[in-house]
């Protein structure tokens, strides 16, 4: 996992998440999310406040509209785009409590797979095959 890949831990990812405007987020979905990062013997709490296309990240264990819990290993993979949050949920590697709609927002806050292609790039690849 070391070397040239873009693997980051969930902690690094959330710390690095700027507070600038996120034009890709809908302006009408606002709410608070808490991420509980489970480790052996301890849990790290991250608190995300989403308002008007801005995401503010703090450390707090306050109650939130949606609480997401998973092992650090799983959340690290999500932060690296290695597993889709919905897939983790379906495998029961991650659990949620509260307003499920915010889970769909969380999905957009984390990145996609690092090796994903723009469809045009894939189309050029198809062309090269022919």
């Amino acid at each position, binding site marked *: 996992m070391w070397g040239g890949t873009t693997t980051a831990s969930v902690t690094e990812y959330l710390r690095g998440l700027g507070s600038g405007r996120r034009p890709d987020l809908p302006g009408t979905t606002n709410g608070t999310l808490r991420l509980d990062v489970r480790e052996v013997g301890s849990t790290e709490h991250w608190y995300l406040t989403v308002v008007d296309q801005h995401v503010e990240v703090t450390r707090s264990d306050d109650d939130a509209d949606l609480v997401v819990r998973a092992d650090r290993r799983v959340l690290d993979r999500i932060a690296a785009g290695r597993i889709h949050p919905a897939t983790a949920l379906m495998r029961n590697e991650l659990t949620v409590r509260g307003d*499920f709609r915010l889970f769909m927002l969380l*999905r957009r806050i984390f990145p996609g797979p690092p090796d994903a292609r723009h469809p045009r790039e894939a*189309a050029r690849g*198809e062309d090269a095959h022919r």
Partner: protein
Amino acid sequence: MKQEWVYVLAGNAFAISDAQGDMEPDPQVPVGLFSFDTRFLSRWVLTVDGERLKALSRDDMSHFDTRFFLVPGTASHYVDADVSVIRHRSLDDSFTERLTVLNHSAQPAELVVRMEIGNDFADISEISQPRRRDIAIDVDRARRELRLCYRRERFGRDVVVSSTAPAEIDRNGMTFRIRVEPNGQWETRLYVTMVGLGEHGHDMRADLTTYQQHVRVRMRDELRDWLDRAPRLVAEDDFLTTLYRDSLGDLAALRYEPLSSTVPVPVGGLPWAMTLVGRDAMISCLQTLPFTPELAPPTLRLLALLQGGRLDDEHDEEPGKILAALRYGEAAAFGEQPGALYYGAADTTPLFVILLDEYERWSGDAELVRQLRHPARMALDWIDEYGDLTGDGYLRYLCRDPRNGTVNQCWKDSPGAIVHRDGREAGLPRATCELQGYAYDAKRRGARLAREFWDDPAYADQLEHQAAQLRQRFNRDFWLPQRGHYALALEPDGTPVETLTSNIGHLLWSGIVDDDRAAAVADHLVGPELFSGWGVRTLAAGQRPYNPLGSHVGAVWPSDNSLIVAGLRRYGREEQAARIAAGVLDVARTIGGSVPEVIAGYPRQLTTFPVQLPAAGRPQAWSSAALLMMLATLLGLEPCGENLLVDPALPPGSGRMELLDIPGRWGLADAYGRDRGPRERSSRRRLH
């Protein structure tokens, strides 16, 4: 003899059994109890004194409950009428079967009643050959419970069967040794609770009695209210009235509440698509706007919530793209089929904008259009940024996950559906013609929304300009002058795929066809190659790939036909529209029951009876909704400013038809029509 299958359904759960109520795995049909794409019962067989039962009759009380009236003895035996059994099955969040054994004789009856119980936890996608799974079985005699559990890493599914009457429970079922007094009866209720581990802790036993009944009562009330809210059809043709009501009932049944919505949205249909399928859901909403407009807002909101936000090859996801389908089963969770959120569809994104605009035209719900501005803008941006794959201005598709993804990301999504007249596969990425029609329509409608609701006239101008260019380009590049119709698709280098298909009818629906070509297109649609007598074939006869049994290369789809009929009327082709609509109505009339998803493309004069395809699902939301759309199209219902315009053009012989209390921005309005034949049709228009 063809096996008869009986179903009950509720939300995205369903149970399919044979005519006796028994369930045993079948490689072709998902027999058993299913929920969230997972089988929870694969074996459910009732015997009395070791003998199977025979069905005397059945009462399908609603889509969620059925009663089987049974007697011991198979068909080859003389019926022993001393004992009979009533099997009353109902489904809501859990599955309940009330067994009543009646003794009709003057002697007490000592009987051994047994229910064989088993499950394989198969995913709906692997019914033909379920994988072998290790299943843990737990017999809890104290609680009268049989529990079957399946685990894979942290993923888990349990099914728990319990009985109200004392039972001897073993690993394969429950046995009841009972004594029934003369003219007496014995009863037990078997509760089957389905547990998806990690889903908000299904507390099974607490749920069982009060809550479940509460749910069932609520379901009955909701069904009644749903039917009451819809417009009332009064037709000289009694069959139409029945068909209309049945279709409304199907649409009520084919709704569920996904985890992220508290309001029901349409599922695709039974048995393969008991989940949100973006295309089917949006087409169903479009088809039913004059009848049940309440389906559209939750569907639009949910699809906006699930809109693509990033690039992801495995999910064919891009920012702004609208979902193809949600899946909940093990296969989706572990990457053995497209993921839980799959975006492999090129038509869903323009359809989202089309539905939003059309919904506003009917309802006047400006608030929703304002709320969904962001997702609608992202959808419109997607068309050019991610949908135009070769830079030639056409919307195309290319699956980025060849292992599990869908190759043909249009409504004709089977692997060999987009082919040349000689059967060669069209080159990828493919630009099918109807996608261009949808993109054109979406841009025009997006322009209206931008101008009237988003206060963005510059953007509106830009979209209109793009739409005009697209239309011009399309009519130049897709038109085949020698053949007098549009090509099915363009290959990446612009080579047309000249196959004659039903897709040309969608072009009329979208309005991208130049007026002077509409007559030629209409003639093809009712010509002998495309029109079977029952409807328009997906692919015209007389071409190499044609196969009357091929879903997308010859068979006839009522949903496809409903859009074609609307397109024909849009271009003033009343006669052709009425002919095709009459054919599809005859399919429903001849087969009876729910409108099938698809029938074979054989010529009507050859078979005289519509031949159903084995893989066809029934009921299907967009098939039941197709019937509604055809009625609205024949009556010529169209919002016009704040009014409902009515301009009937009914097929000859259909008599008088009234649709009362049509909801919309005008409040409630009525429509009247009578068959006059297209030439006699008066120009009288009724404005409300």
